[in-house]
């Protein structure tokens, strides 16, 4: 099987039929999945932190690490590989988990989800499906051919969003 992995702070797009793009063990990180049914292009971004202003240098080296810079790059990449900017882009989100009894100080998962939503709104975009929060670690697979987005978690099986 043709699987391409997206690491922490990375993003990619694909329109190769038969290919699957996957990101593992999201924890508090958020996966942003973009699907353009028209050009059959799919994109995946693995964001770890909400805002690039904490370290501009790091954001230049690895824009996908942060929600704000990552989403800009992902959308650019979608356009470069076939999304013509018209028609609806389908967006799905996964991740943003925390542990039980988390307090405000350490709830980075929640802050990541809020930051991703906010950055998407700037482009008048919103997610049609979200599998976020809670205390499970999720992995995401996107099948390029069908556009299906599958979530899996150790010991809990797989399900589609």
């Amino acid at each position, binding site marked *: 099987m043709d699987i391409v992995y997206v690491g922490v702070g990375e993003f990619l797009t694909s329109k190769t039929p038969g290919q699957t793009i996957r990101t593992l063990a999201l*924890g*508090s990180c958020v996966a942003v999945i973009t699907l353009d049914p028209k050009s059959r292009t799919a994109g995946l971004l693995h964001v770890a932190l909400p805002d690039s202003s904490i370290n501009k240098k*790091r954001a230049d080296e690895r824009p996908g690490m942060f929600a704000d810079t990552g989403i800009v790059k992902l959308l650019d990449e979608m356009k470069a590989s076939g999304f013509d900017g018209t028609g609806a882009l389908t967006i799905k989100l996964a991740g943003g988990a*925390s*542990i039980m009894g988390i307090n405000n100080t*350490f709830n980075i*998962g929640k802050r990541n989800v809020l930051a991703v939503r906010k950055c998407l709104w700037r482009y008048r975009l919103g997610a049609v499906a979200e599998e976020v929060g809670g205390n499970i670690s999720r992995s995401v697979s996107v099948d390029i051919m069908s556009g299906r987005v599958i979530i899996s978690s*150790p*010991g809990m099986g797989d399900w589609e969003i």
Partner: protein
Amino acid sequence: MSIADAIAKKIAEQPIPSLMAVQLLKVIEDEDHSLKEVVRLVETDASLTTEVLKVANSAAYYRGQPVTTISRAVLLLGEMMVVGVAICASSSIVFHAPLDGYNSQKGEMWEHSLRTAIAARELARYARKSISPGLAFTAGLLHDIGKSVISGFIAGSTEEMAQSCQNGGVTDFIEAERKLLGTDHAEVGYALAQRWGLPELLCAAIRDHHQPAQSDEKYKGLVYTVHLADLISMIGGCGTGSDSLAYRLDNNYVEYIRFEKEELELLLLKIQGDFVSLKTAILAD
């Protein structure tokens, strides 16, 4: 054989870390020891020398000049971290085998331990009463050693245990282990640590990392540091499979660690960076 006996047998069967690691601990425990003694011991072991130099020269520690001598490396890393490296390098069954019972792949236990170690070292800077960063690193590295023993005993029940944590049947995965086996990976880790001859402070950090409130007052600074570091490692996506994130934060950490919300993002960025560079340094040939 009862489960308790079978677990005790398994603890006894786990290999003891190299004589070198144990000797290093003995030297360090003596308050009057000199740095020279530590350096001399490390230098007698070629593979440990290589490991220590790898860590000292990783991007996480690099200070603009390559470190070529053990004495510089020990000064840079601290003695306790050198012990941690020695224990890890000689306990591959504990750190590098898959944990089937946790649905955890080969390498995940090692990555979880390393990331917890780095997080603990960074958090030590926020402790209200000073904690040595090297000690915190080693405590983080060792906190889950009990999982290597427990894993085989929870296999087959894991899904049910994870579900039970999700639907509130138990408060966390530790309770699920205890319910099934009468013991848990923290308690078993403590037994293992004692058998290895680790100092009591490290044993306590292993035993109490999920129930820090139960620890002896004199250990609580370190115990809460490891408790938080473990959480940070798990939310960073470095868990050990089915139990990942199925634990509870004890908010009383605030009595021992002074940490503000505004500091979190930079801390996580630092941990992520050091994790990648240490991982590559240690795995590189």
